């Protein structure tokens, strides 16, 4: 119930054993470092290679970003020699990469240009004109290009007497060449501009169109050839990728090690590291460090004092571990607090099951989350929690006697089950809208839709009352835990004033209410006075903030009625799907049975989805808002020892 015990660990050693110390800490993976804040002592600087290695990482990253992700190749541990070789290799690979990339880009552009030119040149060829002469002509002016308003050509240019023109369509693009005498140049411009004209300059056409086309074709072939050469280079780089990814991981870890001294305090020739280690592991760490540095190291362990921000390592067993997921959504506890994971394990699935409470839904959800756990390992903690919750839902399905919203089957079916499977259900007479029907009932502890109980003369649904009672117990348990937490951190006086005062108020109010309805013989004023004393104590402990919170106590307990209400909403929907939507179809027989079954499938599918979201959110909310506010503050620093990163995602977005 408490986080793992930690001790402060200070390491002092000469700088000559820097790398041995860092390597050992890295291998142990136990040391949570507190970064040094500059005071009399300076902050350490990264080891010599860090800068080169970082530059190498950038190069690797930029190469990798041009390719699809690949699985890394496993590489041996880097030695100084292999590191130098790797650096050289990466530099060469990077240069090749940049060279090939630029060349390919240039060629791609060249080829694209040439192809475009080829297209309009072939269009020009169909006109059969001597283009170089036309360009040089002083008497004639021309315009060549594409037009988008093809339908309007005849109407607009055809009617202009001074302009002669030709058009051709190539690959669904229409080209036009319009010629007129030089004095009509402005008129020509104006006319073609009405056609959505896009000019193509012909200045570059110096030879006959046929010859131009021939030289262009050889240019494209040549460009394609050289492109292939670069493609080969590109493929060679691609083959190196797994090694490169492997190298990236190794180098990244190496950089992390080399930059570790940024967290140390240093003098001219020694360094001091401050951090935290689990109290159980002190001997192992000490021995390993002393061995690695040849006893040139001083290690000092001290206990945590009140002002320290001790990192928190939660200590939970196999069963309760997944529930840390729910705690992490909120906040992890501080070092001195209870770790409420075990409490979440005890009550969250219970609340979920209490709300969902349907054997059929529970079974479906159990299988669904089991599949999710298999298929998506990253969600395994959440899946485990929900599987557990689904299991409890099945149990509560038994308590309420509900399977997919059905509470009973017809007498005939009941008899058939009894004869065929030996499952005999008790018969029960229902009166609904004045009509009596006999059905074979599922066994149950109580029916949550119909079972009422008498509260102070009112008929109230049993599930709502049970919910409120659970709330009363849960909240008071929270107050008790809060008392223990305060006792530990602020002493008995404050704990009593801030937490037990709530319970005194509750006792007072309960006594007063009981006297009012005549269940207690003392005057109701005794109760009110006790409650008032509680309020005064609370005011002393928590100030005006506490007093403002008093009405919230009642509303928070009533808030637990949702345990019943959410379930009732879910049953309501299931009953509507079964009895009001599907059964009328099924009763008509024939093809309508299929329609009825489809309605049931869709209806229950939606209801199951709601049945996960509703109970999950409400269940977790009751913990976060109503329960945790009584004892839990959170805000702990997670214990993150310096160790090998499990999964580094170093690739930049492509």
């Amino acid at each position, binding site marked *: 119930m408490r986080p793992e015990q930690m001790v402060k660990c200070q390491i002092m050693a000469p700088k000559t054993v820097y790398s041995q110390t860092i390597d050992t800490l890295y291998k142990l993976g136990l040391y949570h470092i507190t970064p040094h804040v500059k005071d009399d002592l300076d902050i350490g600087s990264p080891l010599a290679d860090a800068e080169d290695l970082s530059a190498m990482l950038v190069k690797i990253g930029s190469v990798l970003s041009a390719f699809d992700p690949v699985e890394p190749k496993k590489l041996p541990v880097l030695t100084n020699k292999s590191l130098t070789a790797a650096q050289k290799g990466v530099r060469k690979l990077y240069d090749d990469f940049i060279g090939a990339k630029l060349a390919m880009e240039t060629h791609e552009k060249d080829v694209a240009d040439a192809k475009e030119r080829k297209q309009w040149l072939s269009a020009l060829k169909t006109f059969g004109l001597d283009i170089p002469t036309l360009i040089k002509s002083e008497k004639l002016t021309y315009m060549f290009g594409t037009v988008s308003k093809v339908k309007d050509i005849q109407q607009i240019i055809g009617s202009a007497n001074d302009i002669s023109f030709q058009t051709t369509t190539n690959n669904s693009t229409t080209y036009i060449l319009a010629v007129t005498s030089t004095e009509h140049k402005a008129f020509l411009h104006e006319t073609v501009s009405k056609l959505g004209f896009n000019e193509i300059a012909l200045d570059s056409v110096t030879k006959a169109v046929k010859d131009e086309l021939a030289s262009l074709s050889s240019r494209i072939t040549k460009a394609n050839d050289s492109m292939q050469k670069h493609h080969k280079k590109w493929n060679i780089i691609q083959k190196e990728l797994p090694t490169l990814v492997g190298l990236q991981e190794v180098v990244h870890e190496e950089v992390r090690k080399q930059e570790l001294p940024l967290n140390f305090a240093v003098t001219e020739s020694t360094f001091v590291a401050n951090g935290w280690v689990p109290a159980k592991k002190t001997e192992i760490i000490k021995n390993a460090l002393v061995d690695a540095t040849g006893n040139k190291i001083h290690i000092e362990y001290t206990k945590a004092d009140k002002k320290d921000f001790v990192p928190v390592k939660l200590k939970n067993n196999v069963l309760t571990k997944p529930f840390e997921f729910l705690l992490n959504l909120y906040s992890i506890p501080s070092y001195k607090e209870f770790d409420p994971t075990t409490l979440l394990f005890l009550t969250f699935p219970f609340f979920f099951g209490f709300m969902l409470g349907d054997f059929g839904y529970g079974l479906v959800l159990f299988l669904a989350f089991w599949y999710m756990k298999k298929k998506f390992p990253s969600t395994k903690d959440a899946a485990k929690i929900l599987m557990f919750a689904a299991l409890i839902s099945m149990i509560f399905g038994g308590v309420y006697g509900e399977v997919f919203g059905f509470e009973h089957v017809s007498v005939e079916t009941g008899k058939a089950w009894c004869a065929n499977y030996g499952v005999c259900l008790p018969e029960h007479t229902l009166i609904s809208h004045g009509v009596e029907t006999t059905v074979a009932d599922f066994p149950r502890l109580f029916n949550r839709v119909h079972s009422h109980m008498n509260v102070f003369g009112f008929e*109230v*649904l049993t599930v*709502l009352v049970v919910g409120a009672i659970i709330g009363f117990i849960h909240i008071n348990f929270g107050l008790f835990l809060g008392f223990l937490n305060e006792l530990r951190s602020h002493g008995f006086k404050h704990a009593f004033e801030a937490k037990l005062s709530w319970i005194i108020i509750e006792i007072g109010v309960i006594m007063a209410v009981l006297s009012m309805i005549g269940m207690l013989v003392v005057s109701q004023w005794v109760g009110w006075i006790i409650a008032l004393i509680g309020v005064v104590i609370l005011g002393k402990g928590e100030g005006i903030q506490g007093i403002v919170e008093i009405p919230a106590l009642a509303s928070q307990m009533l808030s637990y*009625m949702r345990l019943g*209400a959410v379930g009732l909403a879910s049953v309501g929907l299931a009953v509507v799907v079964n009895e009001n939507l599907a059964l009328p179809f099924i009763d008509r027989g024939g093809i309508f049975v299929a329609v009825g079954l489809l309605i049931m499938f869709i209806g229950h599918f939606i209801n199951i989805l709601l049945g996960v979201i509703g109970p999950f959110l409400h269940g*977790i909310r009751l913990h*976060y*808002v109503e329960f945790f506010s009584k004892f839990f503050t959170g805000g702990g620093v997670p214990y993150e020892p310096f160790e090998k990163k499990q999964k580094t995602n170093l690739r930049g977005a492509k």
Partner: protein
Amino acid sequence: MAEAGLIAIGAGLALGLSALAAGWAESSIGAAAVGAMAENEKLFGKGLILTVIPETLVIFGLVIAILIIGLAG
């Protein structure tokens, strides 16, 4: 029968109005929570809790509706 009709209307109003109120309250909280989450994904848990706090209104509405229907017998 007229009495039963009034009871049904009362229950409907209790649930409907409280749901409307909860939706109204949650709309601005939800928008702020999503905004905060866009800045820091770790706030998902806190955002979720803050968003569902007004949900209590609907629950109370539902409980009252059920109690009112209970009165009808």
